[in-house]
């Protein structure tokens, strides 16, 4: 197999010119992505507190030390709970809403779609700030509405169990629109012929959904799952705004913990080691999911 079909298809002179034109972009990528990544790898095996002077001695045990850190393990547990919850809920709700919106008989469906997409247009920081005010136990509109109908008024962000559930609810509110958009795009691109064939064969609505829609949409669902899973594993902004990891350490996620070790403790070595461990987990999960996706496609 040729190394590069595009370049090889060009005459020698043009090939050189094309490479020259591409070179700045390639150099740019090396400078802004690969160099920081390699430098972070270098830092991750050194002792270095930023405010205490220059980079210190070589210390491979950074990786072992951080893996024994009970706060990191707690953050890992929280991250798994958060990621699993939001991905399952967002895919389920998003898929349901995408199916509804794919029904051409629904009036004003574009308006509904527009409204449902509004959360996606908002930055997570804004979402966090809005929800923090909405959820204020005494002054927030949510508890006020609950009080009007005589329901109990939870202390959403101050209770250790409820705080994580609240973050999950806010994340689902914010991110489900992305799933709707991706799955709706997938649904609208499904070929009508297969549905017509299924109808001729006497398939009912459930059978069409189970044996036509699901298999055809599976790759799209997997792509949406991978993207959301990677993003959820990196959840930082919502935690930062809503709880700062509290109450106690009930909502501290890996990304938030890494941020603290880096920006507050200024511990370049340990935070880089943690970041590389997180990167490794994300790469591994992505590879597994991609393999599953390939199998589904086959």
């Amino acid at each position, binding site marked *: 197999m040729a190394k590069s079909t595009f370049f090889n298809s060009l005459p020698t002179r043009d090939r050189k010119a094309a490479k*020259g034109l591409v070179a700045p972009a390639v150099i740019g990528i090396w400078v802004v992505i690969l160099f920081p990544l390699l430098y972070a790898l270098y830092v991750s095996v050194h002792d270095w507190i930023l*405010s205490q002077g220059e980079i210190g001695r070589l210390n491979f045990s950074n990786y072992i030390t951080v893996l024994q850190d009970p706060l990191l393990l707690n953050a890992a547990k929280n991250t798994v709970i958060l990621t699993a919850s939001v991905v399952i809920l967002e895919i389920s709700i998003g898929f349901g809403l995408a199916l509804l919106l794919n029904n051409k008989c629904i009036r004003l469906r574009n308006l509904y779609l527009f409204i449902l997409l509004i959360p996606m247009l908002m930055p997570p920081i804004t979402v966090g700030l809005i929800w923090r005010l909405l959820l204020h136990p005494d002054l927030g509109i949510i508890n006020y509405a609950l009080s009007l109908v005589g329901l109990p008024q939870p202390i959403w962000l101050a209770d250790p169990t409820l705080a994580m559930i609240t973050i999950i609810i806010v994340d689902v509110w914010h991110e489900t629109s992305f799933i709707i958009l991706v799955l709706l795009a997938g649904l609208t691109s499904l070929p009508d012929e297969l549905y017509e064939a299924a109808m001729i064969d006497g398939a009912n609505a459930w059978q069409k959904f189970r044996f036509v829609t699901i298999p055809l949409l599976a790759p799209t669902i997997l792509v949406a799952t991978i993207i959301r899973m990677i993003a959820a594993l990196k959840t930082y902004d919502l935690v930062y705004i809503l709880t700062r990891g509290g*109450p106690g*350490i*009930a909502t501290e996620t890996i990304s938030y913990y890494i941020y603290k070790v880096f920006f507050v403790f200024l511990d370049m070595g340990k935070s880089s080691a943690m970041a590389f461990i997180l990167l490794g987990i994300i790469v591994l999960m992505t590879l597994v999911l991609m393999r599953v996706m390939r199998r589904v496609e086959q």
Partner: protein
Amino acid sequence: MKKGLLTIFGLLIIMSMLLSACAKTEQPVGPEGAKPFDGVTINVMMEGVPDTEYVQAQLSKFEEETGATVNIEVLNYALMHEKLVPQLTAAAGSGSYDLIVVDNYWVAEFNRAGWLMPLDDKIAASDKVKMDAYLPSMLEMVGTYEGKTYMLPFYNYAMALVYRNDLFTDPTIQAEYKDKFGKDIALPTSIPEYIELSKFMTRDINGDGETDIYGASMQGLRPDPTAMEFLNYLYSMGGQLYDLDGKVILTQEVGVAALDAYVDNMKSSAPPGAPSYGFDEAFATVAQGKAFSYITYNWMVPVLDNPEQSQVVDKMKVTAVPGGIGLLGGWGWAIPNSSANPDAAWAFIEWVESFDIAKERALLGGAPTRADVFQDPDVLAKYPHYKDVEKIVGDSIMFPMQSRAPQIVEVLGRVISETIAGSMTSEAAIQELITESNNLADK
């Protein structure tokens, strides 16, 4: 060949763009009679607090006098440290900020790292800056470090007890207090007395079964809101984290007593959401008239007297933290070594810290750091409580001068929050605090 040249040309354009982006702001040489800093922009990072707003209101005078443009970037406190540090590590003259304000927590960290410019020579050459005008407690905290001056105190945030005087002097409440405790109601002189008063003041006024007034508005959000609040309890009960030599002196006994008192007050007299409240939520609770008291910055009274922000106008008074000793805080002006315009930055400091401008700021509601401003008749006529505040600033204890203070605050905030949440006992929390304070102490 032509295409090769094109590529080189493209690379040159990219390089020139990068270089021009990195170029320093240079002071232009103007014609004779021009203002000293015509065309110079002074970039400053500041926190979004009332004193910053007062400086912004005064800026145009400096800009007119000097020709400089002062560009103030206002940030939330939580974002400042992480944004400042990468800029402070920049090479001399290449940082984004020409002038910064330094919280007292950061003083040792920034100076040990060598990020701030010593100001002694500039002070000696200045006929405007009067160092002996500052309160010694402020100079010690946000002025000098290991014998050299790196900052000029900007404003204080000594913590105090702000309380509802209308409730405190209400005859019905006073009679109820006397019936219950057999003594006249009085301002608390210790933390246990304060907790007792907070519990008493927590009440359902309209009889609907819901609490309308909480005895204490509190902020349990980690790390700094809860850490700062708790330190008032600790200091007032005789505890401290470090001695002046940087040795950990916190004992299990005092630490646990203070933490238990803090958690008790939060659970019995603060709003249910207080464990997750930051400054804004705790302030809103007071401003909406839902709290009797609030251990907060002494300068909150003018803010709470502003009808645009508060429903408790003219109802709040300030006194010392129960026990007389609270947490002293403050900010100082400093020029980072990475400043691209240190001369213009110094000119700004000289101007903003001159007596007239500092007094004007105090009259707007600012928190003074100079004795002459505190004692100025005009200032005292407008804010008579500044006489008490001057004493509070003089008596309060600052956060330990440790280079890893932000990290100590982080640990402190976490163990307090864990104790409130119930995932840690107060004994375990204080033990961890002592251990971590030892680990993080300057060696």
